[in-house]
């Protein structure tokens, strides 16, 4: 089934929606910028501008300067917000302590997430950032924006917020940094009714799902990551906005095991594209790589001379399951041993491709180290098809949620719950048969134990009979 949007997105026209003229957006000269002095002394922050990389301090200074020069009717919140932010940050660097408080009842009506209240605990010293709330904006799948959208949201945020934003936060969202409580509803209106988008997740909600670029640009994609991300975002709107989970829950979608959104480490439920048939081999292209006619790694490392490509050393010997060999000039892969690491495919993309019977693996339970250590996800479903309308996937999602919502303690992540109840109990409850792929290393994640009813004939034995042959 081809991808179908729930409805077409509104076409935005920046020229109609813009708040500022070009001259107002570039209302200072390079000279003025060079001689710009923040109203606080910020030597430590100035230092950050000196390295080889662009610094957020330089960006913030440009924004501070622009805000100094905009007229009063061109900004609805505090003109000095950026300068106060820099001042407070410098102080935090001096003291090694944060001055931000966060949380509270701020939010937009009817939504339990997406807005994170943020306050300075030095409101008297830095009044312009006394309130500096964060808004998470649900980014489009793979972050494809139109310039009309980006320019419009920038103008809106200059007008109603601090002008500072983060593209993108670690959550995946486009993050608007710093506004006051009274601006929240107007901003929500602009986002929903003008920009035709939605705010993202925070709190005990489904968080904004995120996917790799997938089939839009990448020939490795084993399923349409954008379509699945879009579908689940829309289908689970209620979970995104109305908190009833024990804690946060994240979906992330990688099109193949290269894992460009690192779903295996960053999401409670990680979807990774895979295939269950054989890697496709073009033997002529293999020969061309060996002969040096095609640059390996699609030219990714060609900035330096690595010598002649050596298929034995660079591909076959590096295969983690040692399942490749050259027979004559034919490359042979024992696909039953392949662990889909992608190394050979990445090295010789013209010669090797993922199979054609593609789908997803689902992994559960990754999390950051707030409790215990950081944890990678555990493989739960080695293979499942991923085709619209994705009923099989939704069914699985809901089974997992049901168990977590029933058994999870307040503020317990799925990964912690899985550890607490143990893997055997967990898979039994959600109805998955144990599979060898679930066991990463026998000593570091649990064995599967057989139960009597799983074993033909059971294991009833006569203990007295046994003792007659084996002394205590």
């Amino acid at each position, binding site marked *: 089934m081809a991808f179908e949007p729930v409805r077409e997105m509104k076409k935005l026209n920046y020229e109609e929606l813009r708040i500022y003229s070009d001259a107002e957006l570039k209302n200072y000269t390079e000279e003025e910028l060079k001689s710009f002095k923040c109203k606080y002394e910020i030597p430590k922050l100035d230092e950050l501008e000196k390295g080889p990389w662009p610094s957020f301090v330089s960006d913030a200074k440009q924004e501070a300067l622009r805000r100094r020069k905009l007229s009063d009717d061109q900004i609805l919140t505090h003109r000095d917000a950026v300068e106060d932010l820099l001042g407070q940050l410098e102080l935090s660097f001096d003291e090694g302590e944060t001055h931000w*408080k*966060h*949380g*509270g*009842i*701020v*939010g937009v009506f*009817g*939504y*339990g*997430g997406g*807005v*994170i*209240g*943020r*306050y300075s605990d030095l409101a008297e010293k830095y009044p312009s950032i006394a309130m500096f709330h*964060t808004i998470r904006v649900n980014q489009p799948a793979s972050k494809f924006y139109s310039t009309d959208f980006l320019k419009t949201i920038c103008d809106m945020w200059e007008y109603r917020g601090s002008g500072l934003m983060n593209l993108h936060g670690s*959550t995946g969202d486009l993050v608007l940094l710093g506004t006051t*409580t009274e601006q929240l509803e107007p901003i929500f209106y602009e986002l929903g009714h003008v920009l035709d988008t939605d705010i993202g997740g*925070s*709190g*005990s*909600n489904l968080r904004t799902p995120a996917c790799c670029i997938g089939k839009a640009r990448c020939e490795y994609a084993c399923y349409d990551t954008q379509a699945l991300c879009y579908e689940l975002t829309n289908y689970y709107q*209620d979970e995104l906005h*109305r*908190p*009833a*989970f*024990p*804690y*946060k829950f994240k979906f992330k979608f990688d099109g193949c095991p290269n894992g460009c959104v690192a779903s295996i480490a960053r999401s409670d439920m990680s979807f990774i594209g895979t295939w269950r048939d054989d890697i496709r081999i073009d033997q002529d292209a293999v020969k061309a790589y060996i002969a040096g006619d095609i640059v390996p790694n699609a030219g990714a490392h060609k900035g330096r001379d690595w010598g002649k490509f050596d298929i034995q050393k660079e591909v076959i010997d590096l295969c983690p399951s040692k399942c490749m060999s050259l027979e004559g000039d034919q490359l042979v892969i024992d696909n039953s041993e392949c662990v889909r690491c992608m190394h050979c495919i990445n090295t010789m993309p013209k010669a090797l491709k993922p199979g054609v019977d593609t789908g997803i693996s689902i992994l559960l339970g990754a999390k950051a180290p*707030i409790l215990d250590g950081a944890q990678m996800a555990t493989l739960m479903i080695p293979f499942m098809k991923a085709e619209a309308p994705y009923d099989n996937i939704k069914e699985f999602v809901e089974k997992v949620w049901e168990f977590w*919502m*029933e058994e*999870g*303690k*307040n*503020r317990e992540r799925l990964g912690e719950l899985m550890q607490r109840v143990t893997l055997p109990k967990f898979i039994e409850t959600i109805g998955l048969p144990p599979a060898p792929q679930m066991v990463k290393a026998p000593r570091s994640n649990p064995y599967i134990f057989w139960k009597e009813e799983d074993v033909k004939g059971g294991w009833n034995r006569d203990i007295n009979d046994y003792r007659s042959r084996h002394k205590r």
Partner: protein
Amino acid sequence: MIEEIKKAIVDFAEGSKKTKFYFKDMESAVQKVVPGAKMRDVKKAATALVNEEVLIYFSTGSSTMYGLKGRGMTEDPTEGTD
């Protein structure tokens, strides 16, 4: 049933010493009074109460709680992580 659950939520919220509580605690309190109430029903009722401006959300950024509007809940932020 939804009205019954709504009442149970408000009774729990009014009777609780705490001004804010987790969904799970609200859910178990409701289920003591309305044994047939499923999680989904409690969520629907809570959403309705939010829309009626009886309940409000309280969020630390990382987790979310519920509270009665106007009862000890201020814009006060707390510690926590996003």
